[in-house]
């Protein structure tokens, strides 16, 4: 029996993810995602008594103190406002902070708004240079190493320990893009095949261009509340049932096995324990596939398969499998506007559990779904488990 912490995702929405060259700004996306989440929850602006903003970097928004600005932009005043940050985990760090505010009675209805303008308004090289500071900027960063090279070395260690091959990685890269073709908000809904991955430019061996998630623009918003504080007492809404978070050595080279996402394993164990369930009860997952191989490394750490490579080959993580994974397309297909990523995962999982997801659905409506993010290279990990409608 699942633990009952008495919290639901009252509503949620995201903007289209992609390289926004339509003249819209992150302030527009924020207003759009927030208004849609409010509508989805059947709430008014005045019902919101806390706002938590997830945004990775002021270098991207070019706005210091973005939480104050965005609250003002959304027309929210006289309420508790803060920003939560944990690199690529920022969205879920913010969701977990929002849940803590509700649990502790400091807020009744919290809006969690994640966003990042990471694609259209800076050059790709400038964004890559900023992202290369996501590790230890003084040691790793000073070598000039980029994210792809760090992930590549972790993937090589994973391949050395398991029998994973670049074909397994390519299958993930293809499947997530194919899944994204059903998602109206996806950045890369690509009709590609493994040969396309193999023919794409080598970025850092073993990773080719199509093994890498894109730089994306976009925003996502969820509203968290205890059901009693919602219209219709939150009937029909997915429940937030388990949360975990843990960190690892920031320098990949210091880890006992650079191919293992050890902190993610700890974060997941916390979340399962908090929810009072086992990994075998997870029937849908949105995992942090910043790179194709990282999806397999994540699934392994999350305990969603005993032998992740064999499970991948058996189709366990396909839409028709027992643990459908990244049906949204994940970061590879839906896109990766950093602060929005973790929030969008919560929206996807909630809507899947509620049986009203706009994109690709699983064979059966799941009872439990898991959302997984991390910052750095599984350095700051946050895992959230949602339960179906009761």
């Amino acid at each position, binding site marked *: 029996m699942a633990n009952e912490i008495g919290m639901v995702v009252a509503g949620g929405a995201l903007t289209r993810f992609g390289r926004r060259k339509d003249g819209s700004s992150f302030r527009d996306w924020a207003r759009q995602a927030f208004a849609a989440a409010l509508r989805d929850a059947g709430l008014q602006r005045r019902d919101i008594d806390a706002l938590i903003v997830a945004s990775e970097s002021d270098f991207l928004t070019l706005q210091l103190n973005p939480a104050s600005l965005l609250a003002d932009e959304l027309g929210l005043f006289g309420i508790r406002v803060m920003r939560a940050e944990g690199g690529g985990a920022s969205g879920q760090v913010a969701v977990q902070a929002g849940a803590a505010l509700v649990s502790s009675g400091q807020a009744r209805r919290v809006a969690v708004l994640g966003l990042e303008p990471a694609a259209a308004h800076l050059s790709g090289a400038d964004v890559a240079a900023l992202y290369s500071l996501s590790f230890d900027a003084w040691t790793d960063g000073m*070598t000039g190493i980029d994210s792809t090279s760090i992930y590549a070395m972790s993937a*090589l260690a994973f391949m050395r320990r398991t029998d994973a091959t670049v074909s397994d990685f390519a299958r993930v890269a293809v499947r997530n893009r194919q899944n994204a073709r059903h998602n109206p908000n996806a950045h890369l809904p690509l009709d590609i095949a493994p040969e396309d991955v193999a023919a794409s430019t080598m970025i*850092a*061996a073993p990773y080719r261009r199509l093994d890498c998630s894109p730089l994306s623009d976009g925003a996502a918003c969820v509203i968290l509340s205890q059901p009693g504080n919602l219209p219709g007492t939150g009937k029909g809404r997915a429940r937030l049932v388990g949360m975990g978070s843990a960190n690892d050595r920031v320098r990949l*080279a*210091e880890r006992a096995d*650079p191919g293992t996402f050890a902190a993610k394993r700890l974060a997941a164990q916390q979340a399962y324990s908090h929810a009072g369930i086992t990994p075998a009860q997870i029937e849908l997952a949105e995992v942090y596939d910043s790179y194709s191989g990282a999806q397999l490394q994540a699934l392994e750490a999350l305990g969603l398969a005993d032998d992740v490579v064999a499970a991948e080959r058996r189709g366990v993580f396909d839409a028709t499998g027992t643990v459908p994974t990244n049906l949204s397309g994940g970061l590879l297909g839906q896109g990766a506007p950093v602060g929005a990523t973790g929030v969008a995962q919560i929206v996807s999982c909630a809507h899947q559990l509620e049986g009203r997801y706009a994109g690709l659905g699983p064979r059966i409506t799941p009872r439990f779904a898991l959302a997984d993010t991390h910052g750095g290279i599984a350095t700051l990990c946050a895992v959230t488990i949602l339960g179906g409608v009761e």
Partner: protein
Amino acid sequence: MRLSIALDYTLPEGGMAPYFDALRAGVALASRCKGCGRISFPPRLVCAECGAEAHDWARLSGRARVVLRTDALAAAFALARFEGADGTTTVALGNPEARGETGQLMAPNGPRPGLWLRLNERETDHA
């Protein structure tokens, strides 16, 4: 609107200054934990194994063996095990055309105090 910002940082190196000073001279300076004796390179000012805050500095030979290597578009990087250090270190390869598995720490290429390894050409030059 268009906006261009140039940021010119001067970062004090604080407790890591001895490491950076040595690195700029091509010398590998590690920390040796006074609690458990672990030798970390790059140094750790708080030991991640035992939590001790006291350490000595230990000069390493700078010789290293590549454990994992990735060749990127315009550079190559590796996790390398430095002689005398516990654990491995992320390095940029100074001569990526070389295929040797051993090498020597070199002074950084350019103003950034990065960890660079010059690979030996021949496999007889063992670290």
